[in-house]
């Protein structure tokens, strides 16, 4: 594995353009993550078409760098103007904004940058070892196991995204149904394309995800077009001194491990990945009373955990093809568009690409610290760019990005359709991530399902013939039960707090 990683570094440095892409990706990610309302997911979706002509390792490096930059960037407006760029950044806002109020915004931004960078680096090391082990285990999977695995991924994500398990299941079903449009994967018979030539290959993934995650978000942002922008001060980030670094390193280390483990479980995502390490840091601190009042440890724990959880989510995404949340679901789409097949075979067929991306992630973690410190003084200005200029530009990027994959105006219409669908679902609180996952996993699920039944001559017991399948089925059922209980409990709490709610 070390040899493969060294080969990955060699491949990364053999393309000077790769380093440029890391800097560009981290920079774009930080800006997008920092602008309230914009997300790393949207950035990855819009950047996808730019990667078409690239080597897979270069394209993935750009997308992964935007991802890492975006996760970090989300914490900046939380610290400066108490408006977290992403939900996962809310934990670092608690103490980060308190430090800003005390005139220590420079230190808060410095600790934030250092913790993000270190958390990303440590988490990438766990990713390298963890994903290789998991991929090795999954190499023996046959079509029956792959089918059950796809169902497991869909049930887990449906269970924990959104407010209701039932709604998640409906959306996963919709994604699976949409994936059946076009030529069927085994016999090549056209289905549900209604004679439309452009639908012969089914819904193109890029327009679908640009619509679901970028256009719908623009439409949501239009609703707050008139909200006055909070002005932020111009602040430089200050790297904490050696004594401070020594004092926060145990917290960063523990939070990174916790964050990675939480992120690796499909579903919980970066929000729990930042709040659980924060709570643990508070519990084990010698000065828990300082948490919430400007504790440096609080910023370090939340931010290291946040970035580690995001990278941890890459473990099931790369090895099993199961993304935990929106950003990794879009990254998974990116993998497929670049001609790679996510899952254990990725580590066999494209090991050089995987290890080159791992090497790039380690470099990106270092670049993140460098760029975060440099860019901090400009962020106050950047996060206040008015939406009246930002939103039309993002829409133009969405239009061009949808068009670029097949040079097809029809695809722009598809993106607009998915955008409207995503917006409508957002308004009625239905999750969109399961739709994308259904679209991605649908063809894999169907071809595995049919192959397994062909092998067994129609005997459905093949799906219960291995221990792995049985364990995955049990886990799927447990995830539904757990998801139902979790969403019911959240809805009950929301109801008792006087918020509008419903449970299934």
């Amino acid at each position, binding site marked *: 594995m070390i040899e493969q990683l060294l080969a990955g570094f060699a491949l990364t440095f053999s393309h000077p353009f790769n380093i440029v892409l890391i800097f560009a990706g981290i920079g774009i990610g930080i800006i997008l993550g920092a602008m309230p309302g914009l997300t790393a997911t949207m950035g990855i979706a819009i950047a996808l078409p*730019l990667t078409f002509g690239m080597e897979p390792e270069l394209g993935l490096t750009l997308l992964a760098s935007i991802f890492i930059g975006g996760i970090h960037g989300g914490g900046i407006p939380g610290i400066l103007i108490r408006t977290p760029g992403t939900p996962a950044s809310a934990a670092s806002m608690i103490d980060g904004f308190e430090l800003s109020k005390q005139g220590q915004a420079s230190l808060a931004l410095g600790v934030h940058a250092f913790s993000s960078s270190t958390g990303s680096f440590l988490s990438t090391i766990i990713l390298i070892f963890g994903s290789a082990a998991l991929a090795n285990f999954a190499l023996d999977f046959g079509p029956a196991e792959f089918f059950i695995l796809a169902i497991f991924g869909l049930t887990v994500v449906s269970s924990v995204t959104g407010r209701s398990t039932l709604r998640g299941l409906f959306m996963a079903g919709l994604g699976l149904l949409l994936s059946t449009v076009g030529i069927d994967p085994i016999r090549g018979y056209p289905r549900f394309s209604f004679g439309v030539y452009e639908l012969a290959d089914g819904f193109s993934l890029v327009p679908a995800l640009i619509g679901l995650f970028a256009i719908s978000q623009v439409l949501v942002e239009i609703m707050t077009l008139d909200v006055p922008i909070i002005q932020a001060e111009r602040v430089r980030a200050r790297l904490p001194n050696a004594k401070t670094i020594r004092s926060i390193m145990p917290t960063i280390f523990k939070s990174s491990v916790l964050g990675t483990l939480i992120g690796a479980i499909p579903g919980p995502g970066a929000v729990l990945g930042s709040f659980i390490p924060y709570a643990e840091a508070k519990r084990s601190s010698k000065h828990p009373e300082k948490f919430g009042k400007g504790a440096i440890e609080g910023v370090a724990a939340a931010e290291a955990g946040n970035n580690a959880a995001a990278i941890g989510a890459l473990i099931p995404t790369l090895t099993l093809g199961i993304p935990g949340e929106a950003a990794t679901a879009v990254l998974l789409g990116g993998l497929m568009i670049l001609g790679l097949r996510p899952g254990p075979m990725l580590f066999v067929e494209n090991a050089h690409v995987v290890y080159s991306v791992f090497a790039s992630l380690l470099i990106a973690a270092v670049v993140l610290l460098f760029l975060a410190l440099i860019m901090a003084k400009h962020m106050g200005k950047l996060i206040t760019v008015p939406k009246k200029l930002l939103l039309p530009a993002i829409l*133009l990027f969405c239009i061009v990005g949808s068009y670029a994959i097949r040079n097809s105006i029809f695809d722009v219409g598809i993106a607009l359709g998915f955008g409207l669908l995503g917006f409508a679902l957002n308004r009625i609180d239905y999750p969109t991530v399961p739709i994308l996952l259904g679209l991605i996993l649908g063809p894999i699920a169907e071809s595995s399902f049919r192959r397994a039944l062909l092998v067994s001559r129609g005997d459905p017991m093949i799906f219960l013939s291995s221990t792995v399948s049985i364990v995955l089925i049990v886990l799927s059922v447990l995830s539904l039960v757990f998801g139902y209980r979790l969403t019911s409990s959240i809805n009950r709490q929301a109801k008792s707090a006087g918020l509008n709610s*419903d449970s299934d």
Partner: protein
Amino acid sequence: MSRDVRNDLIVAGIFAILSVGVIIGTSDYPVSERAVGIRTFPLILALLLGGLSILVIVRSVLILRKMPRNEDQAGPAIDKRVVTQIVITVVGVAVYIAVVSTGGFIITSVLYLGVMAYYFGERRLWMVATYAIVGVISVYLLFGVLARVPFPEGPAEQILSTIGLG
């Protein structure tokens, strides 16, 4: 609460219709001699989703019947002006799609960016013009030159190619 239940009822109704549509739509697919064919997967999905829809419809109707009629009938409505802005944005993209093939990428995009920025509230015309032109040049360089995407051509692209820049 009733708003959420009503939403679930509407979505389940749509899925029930969709499931019936899939079942009917796949009925004339060629039947396979093997255990599974072209029809199997969408049919299983339609049956599962249809079953789930019926459960949700029954459950929602039962909840709504128990609920007092005056409870939370209307959810927070969106401001009419916001609805207009969203409709104009969507229509803007639709018009762009319709016009770009004849107008070409550059002119259509400059007009689109300018009009949308003005509509969203940017009233300084010099800013609107600079923003639209710089924005389109950036996108053109990024996608047209760097990623080599062949954009739809119009008068501006023809002029650019005549002077050797296209």
